[in-house]
């Protein structure tokens, strides 16, 4: 069975500080990977997707970047946090077939920027 793990579970960070969030998928080779952002009680906004190692596509610009250093790992980062970065960050994976395939979400990371 496939499992998805995100770290850290929660973070409190200062404005202007750097950030790195991680996501690991186990039990599935060559998954499609996605990052989403969700404001508290709000909708989900897709940020990035990755089809293969070393390749990441941006969907929306939020002063964030993403990388896929390994087949099973997806990293979200920024050098300078903004207050607007607060929210719930979700990593997801799908087997194949683009966004029409079912996406399975990880437990998420809650970020509060002060």
């Amino acid at each position, binding site marked *: 069975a496939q499992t998805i793990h995100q770290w850290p579970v929660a973070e409190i960070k200062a404005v202007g500080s750097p950030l790195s969030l991680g996501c690991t998928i186990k039990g599935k080779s060559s998954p*499609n990977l*996605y990052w989403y952002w969700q404001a508290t*009680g*709000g*909708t*989900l*906004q*897709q940020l990035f*997707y990755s*089809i293969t190692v070393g390749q990441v*596509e941006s*969907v929306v610009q939020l002063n964030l970047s993403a990388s896929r250093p390994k087949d099973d790992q997806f990293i979200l980062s920024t050098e300078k946090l903004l207050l607007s970065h607060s929210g719930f960050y*979700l990593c997801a994976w799908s087997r194949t077939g*683009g*966004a*029409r395939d*079912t*996406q*399975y*979400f*990880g*437990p*998420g990371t809650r970020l509060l920027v002060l």
Partner: protein
Amino acid sequence: GDSVTQTEGLVTLTKGLPVMLNCTYQTTYSPFLFWYVQHLNEAPKLLLKSSTDNKRTEHQGFYATLHKSSSSFHLQKSSVQLSDSALYFCALSDLGSWQLIFGSGTQLTVMP
């Protein structure tokens, strides 16, 4: 561009009553529609999905039919339970796209 509209932000019902959550979409391509459910402090999970016109799809007592003529994919259940209280998202993708577009979500609260 593609978009999804969920008209109800908040729906409150008594246990045992039927519910319909509205979802309409806009796309110029062949649509794939999804309903995701998110319980409090949890990750979203897929509830239903469809790309077939006029075919009802069901899961866990919920059902929806994609109607391309009206660009709709409403979610229904004949008798809601307390455990159905959650945030429900309608989402859209289309053939060849890597982007999944979510609606604004509907918070369903079921009262005893």
